[in-house]
């Protein structure tokens, strides 16, 4: 199956700082999504981004499918951004909705 690696595993930042989270994957994918898991365990879908660039407020994401990586940018961090960020990918041999998750990046924003 597809291998998904995320870096860094842990990130501690001061409020207001910017951050870049990386997701590398081992094979061609048709589906790539970024999720934020809040401290209560709820997974929130941030982006569906199998290729290209998208922005939503302070968050943006870029996927370079040919080079098999995706980046999630968080600008002007707030304490509510704390939690674990997961990258998940899917490939067309399943119809691309069966997602394989990375190990996540745990982000802690200090006031």
């Amino acid at each position, binding site marked *: 199956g597809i291998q998904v690696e995320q870096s860094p595993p842990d990130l501690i930042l001061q409020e207001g700082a910017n951050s870049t989270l990386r997701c590398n994957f081992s094979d061609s994918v048709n*589906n790539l*999504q970024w999720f934020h898991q809040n401290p*209560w365990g*709820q*997974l929130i*879908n941030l982006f569906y981004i199998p290729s290209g660039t998208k922005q939503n407020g302070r968050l943006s994401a870029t996927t370079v499918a040919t080079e098999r990586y995706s980046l999630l940018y968080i600008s002007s961090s707030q304490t509510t951004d704390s939690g*674990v960020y997961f990258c998940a990918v899917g490939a067309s041999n399943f119809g*691309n*909705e069966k997602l*394989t998750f990375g190990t996540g990046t745990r982000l802690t924003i200090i006031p």
Partner: protein
Amino acid sequence: EADIYQTPRYLVIGTGKKITLECSQTMGHDKMYWYQQDPGMELHLIHYSYGVNSTEKGDLSSESTVSRIRTEHFPLTLESARPSHTSQYLCASSERTKAFFGQGTRLTVV
């Protein structure tokens, strides 16, 4: 945004009991999934369904079973709970693009 619900949120139960975790969605999605997640770890797919009367096992072997009798409902059952089943169970649904997750059930077997 997402209309997918899991009950119960928390469950503490004794070894050997039969349990059913409920998952319902009102978005009309054909595809539904169960993931298992240990604290601080990644999610592992344990069951999925393409639609009514369609169920398949996921990448992580699980002693649980699922059924899909109605589009909106995808319950997970453990016939005899054991301490090794202690984990968080997350249900999701999707169409072609985004997946939406319920709030999860934290199961503790004592």
